[in-house]
């Protein structure tokens, strides 16, 4: 396991976690909720990496992994508002680094 990738992943993930938490609390107050299902492709080859990615997405408030297709390397992700791939998985490069 690549340590640099691990540290980078932890930092970026915690940052995303904090930001997402505040964002969903704001949405809880003003009610701007527009759930959407998005299909995302990923570059991560290993199954462990894909599971970690899916778990990270689910842990972050505002995004939720519904399905993971390991062969096709795609995830179905529910998002609390329309989002781009980079907004949903800012930590993907680090996970890729961790699992080569």
């Amino acid at each position: 396991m690549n340590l640099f990738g691990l540290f980078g992943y932890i930092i970026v993930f915690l940052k995303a976690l904090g930001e997402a938490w505040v964002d969903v609390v704001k949405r809880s107050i003003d009610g701007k909720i527009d759930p959407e299902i998005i299909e995302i492709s990923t570059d991560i080859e290993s199954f462990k990496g894909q599971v970690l990615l899916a778990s990270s997405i689910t842990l972050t408030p505002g995004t939720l992994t519904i399905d993971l297709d390991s062969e096709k390397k795609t995830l179905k992700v529910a998002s609390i508002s329309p989002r781009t791939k980079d907004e949903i998985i800012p930590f993907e490069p680090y996970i890729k680094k961790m699992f080569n």
Partner: protein
Amino acid sequence: MLEDIVLIIASLGIIFASFRLWVEKDRKRMVYARLHIVGVIDIACIVIMLVFKQYLLALTYFILVPFAAHAIANADYHDELKTKGV
């Protein structure tokens, strides 16, 4: 002092999130929206556990939360009992 501030912020987050869970009406894909909001409560609970130095409990919760949420979302997505058009 810092601990008190963190506790207050986390608690407020739980209150606001719970309010939205209570108030929001059913509509398209609301199951996922509710799971998102419950995610806020989960993170707040983990932070509170850390503040009270229950590290092992917080870690356990941290690991189990995404799998529970994923299982619920996946089950709803593939729900064959759901009537068409809902």
